[in-house]
Every structure is written in structure tokens, then in C-alpha cells.
């Protein structure tokens, strides 16, 4: 059974098999519910989300967030530390200045880094500097992971969740994965088979970078992919790969991940 709904600003597809139709329907519905919950908690655009509350208040007072938000922030911190600050969710200032995100009620925000985000006990959070965070580089992967966990909790053993290209598969069957590479007019490249793992792909245009405090935009004829045990890791690590273009950096292996770059130029050469 395959279903799709518009969530997280993109199309989320969930496929599940191996159980009775009514059971699958219920499980898929619950999995979409988990994704909608991540959306509500972590959207920069929604003024009531945890992320918006943090950006407005955490520089001035301690803010208590949902356990899911706290989990994503802890993972974001681990990635920030492991990548020497390359994975940095404190990009709110840069995104607002470039007009990518709304800046309402956030005039106090300055440029800074994720090191300002202090994770206290009991899901409480405080910012030691007036930064703003955006979880756009990690929350979609987390949402896919929560959807998969929900399916598993409902007894599903064979499933695929694809949130606009960030996807995770579960089950015995290996799935063929295609990569959409910029510069190929929307055509997709068959990249390999995936089993019980996640993959995410980014291009430079979709990634925020903070080189010398500015957004930088490198070559856009490349797709940057990461295969990892969880979609959160795959999603987040693609943001690092886009910046360094180094698929062999040590942190990929440390997180159990594999990184690779697909180039439109190389592919066009091969089929010419």
C-alpha cells in the first residue's frame, strides 16, 4: 500500500506491505501523524513551534521543548561537534538576512554558532548568545525516522518512507534508489540498492552555508548523497558533504555513513 500527503513543505510518500489492508491503513495514517507532529514542533514558519519559541525567547530565558525537539537538538549538537562546526543549525540570522526565512519578532538575532545552544536537563534549552536556529537540515530526516518507528510499532516489517528525497527503507528487500542530479533536467540516475538504511541527497542550491558569515553557492551540477543507518544522520551529513565536497572525511565512517557525489558532467560523458 502506498500513500502520499503534502507535509514538511514537500510530498511525503509512505509505502508499507506484509499485513492486512486495514492494519496497513491504520499504520500509515499513524506514521503520517508522526511526521505532522515533527512539522508542528520544528517549523521556523509556525510561530507556535518549539523552534520559533526558542528563537524568540531562549536568549533571554530557559525554554522547555518537546522531547522530540530536545532529541533533535542533542543530535545536532553531536554533529556540530563531530564535524568541527560544519553542521551548524544556528543559521537563522543568515537565512533571515537573505530573505529565505521570515524575521518577524526576531530583530534581536545576531550571527553566531550552535555552540550557543545549551541543552539542559528535562528538555530545557537556553541560548548563551542571541542566535536563531533552523532545523531544516535535520528535522526532515528525523521525521522520516519517526514515521518508520511508528510503522514498526504497528507491526509493519516492510516499508519505505520518502520525504521529498530523504528516504528510509525497512525490510528484507533491497530497493533500487535513483538520484536526482542538478544539471540533468530532472532525469534521475540509478545509484544502487538500499536495505534497512536511509539515504538523503542535497544540492548546493538547497544547502545553507556559513563560509565567512556569508551564504556561498558552489557548483550546482552535483548531487551530494549520504547513506546512513538513520535518515536524521543522512539528512544532516549531506549538508556537511556539500560544504567540504570530501566524501572520505572521517566523520562519515564514525556515524556509520557512506558519502558520495553524483556529477552531471561525468554521467553525460558516459552516455554520450
Amino acid at each position, binding site marked *: 500500500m502506498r500513500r502520499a500527503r503534502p507535509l514538511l513543505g*514537500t510530498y511525503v510518500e509512505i509505502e508499507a506491505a506484509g499485513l492486512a489492508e486495514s492494519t496497513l491503513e491504520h499504520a500509515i495514517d499513524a506514521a503520517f501523524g508522526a511526521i505532522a507532529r515533527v512539522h508542528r514542533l520544528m517549523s521556523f514558519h509556525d510561530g507556535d513551534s518549539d523552534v520559533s519559541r526558542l528563537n524568540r525567547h531562549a536568549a533571554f530565558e530557559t525554554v522547555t521543548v518537546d522531547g522530540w525537539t530536545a532529541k533533535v537538538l542533542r543530535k545536532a549538537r553531536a554533529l556540530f561537534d563531530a564535524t568541527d562546526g560544519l553542521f551548524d543549525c544556528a543559521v537563522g540570522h543568515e537565512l533571515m538576512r537573505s530573505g529565505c526565512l521570515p524575521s518577524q519578532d526576531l530583530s534581536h538575532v545576531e550571527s553566531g554558532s550552535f555552540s550557543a545552544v545549551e541543552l539542559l536537563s528535562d528538555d530545557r534549552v537556553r541560548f548563551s548568545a542571541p542566535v536563531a536556529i533552523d532545523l531544516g537540515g535535520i528535522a526532515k530526516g528525523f521525521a522520516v525516522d519517526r514515521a518508520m518507528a511508528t510503522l514498526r510499532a504497528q507491526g509493519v516489517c516492510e516499508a519505505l518512507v520518502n520525504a521529498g528525497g530523504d528516504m528510509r527503507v525497512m525490510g528484507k528487500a533491497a530497493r533500487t*534508489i535513483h538520484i536526482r542530479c542538478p544539471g540533468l*533536467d530532472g*532525469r534521475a540516475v540509478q545509484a544502487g540498492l538500499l536495505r534497512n538504511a536511509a539515504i538523503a541527497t542535497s544540492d548546493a542550491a538547497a544547502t545553507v552555508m556559513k563560509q565567512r558569515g556569508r551564504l556561498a553557492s558552489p557548483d550546482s551540477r552535483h548531487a551530494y548523497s549520504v547513506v546512513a543507518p538513520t535518515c536524521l544522520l543522512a539528512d544532516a551529513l549531506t549538508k556537511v558533504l556539500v560544504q567540504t565536497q570530501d566524501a572520505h572525511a572521517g566523520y562519515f565512517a564514525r556515524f556509520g555513513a557512506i558519502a558520495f557525489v553524483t556529477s552531471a558532467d561525468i554521467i553525460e560523458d558516459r552516455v554520450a
Partner: protein
Amino acid sequence: MRASQWMWLPALVISTSAHATTYFTVEQAQRAIFPGATLTATASPNAWRTSNGGYFVVTRVIGKHEYITLAVGINPNGTVKQIEIMQYIESYGYEVREAHWRAQFVGKSASSPLELNNDITNISGATLSSRHVTEGVKRVLQQVASLKGKQ
């Protein structure tokens, strides 16, 4: 462990430019959004009414490269109950070029990883925006308001 997650295929080959997926027929979508409800036709061919004043509307939205058929369930109080994508077609309009490309691969071995149209799923890559869906849902809400006014 790693090898079982990710197996490389020998060749990197271009696939075609379109894929299409049908998730629901109209009847299936009606049952999914309003389980057990009786739906009756309205003056609009794409809208149905439930006995307690809810609406089920089918609409089409067109993005830059996507054609999407949506089912929107509206609660009796006019709020959105549920949105389901019924059909998703993605096309980049390179049919002529594609036919040429495909011809190059005719007769390759059965294990050739080239896929036919509509077979491509599981695409990892740049996110497609669902902004047009939001606009489509707004249109549906306006249509339902107008249908209610005619009652």
C-alpha cells in the same frame, strides 16, 4: 554490515525523465477520508457531500514539473479534515530526447538498470515544493463555501 546496506551496481546509467504513481481511485479516497460515510453528488462534478455536511473534493494542481490530483476532505465546520494525494505525475518534458536515449539501450542485457517510463520511484534528491498543493486546497475551500451558499 555496510555491504548489506548498500550494494553498488556496475554501471551508472541515466534513467527516464518521468514517473507517475496512482495512490487512490476516487472511491478509495472517499473511503479513506470519510470511512463509512455516504457521499452524494453535488452540482460540481468534482465535489461530493456527506450526510452531515462535510465535503469531499477532487482537484488537480500543476507545478513546474508535477501534475498532482488531490482529494480534500472538508469537515462540516469548513476546516480541512484530510488531504490525500491521489495521483502524482512528474515530467520534465524531454520525451524526444528520451526516446533517443532509450534507443541506445534497446537490446542490452535483461539486467541492464535502465528503467522504463513510470517505473522510477525512490528518487533521492532536491526537494520538490508542495506550494501548489497549498494553493489547490485554498481553491477547494472557496469552492465548498460557494457550494454551501447554493444549498
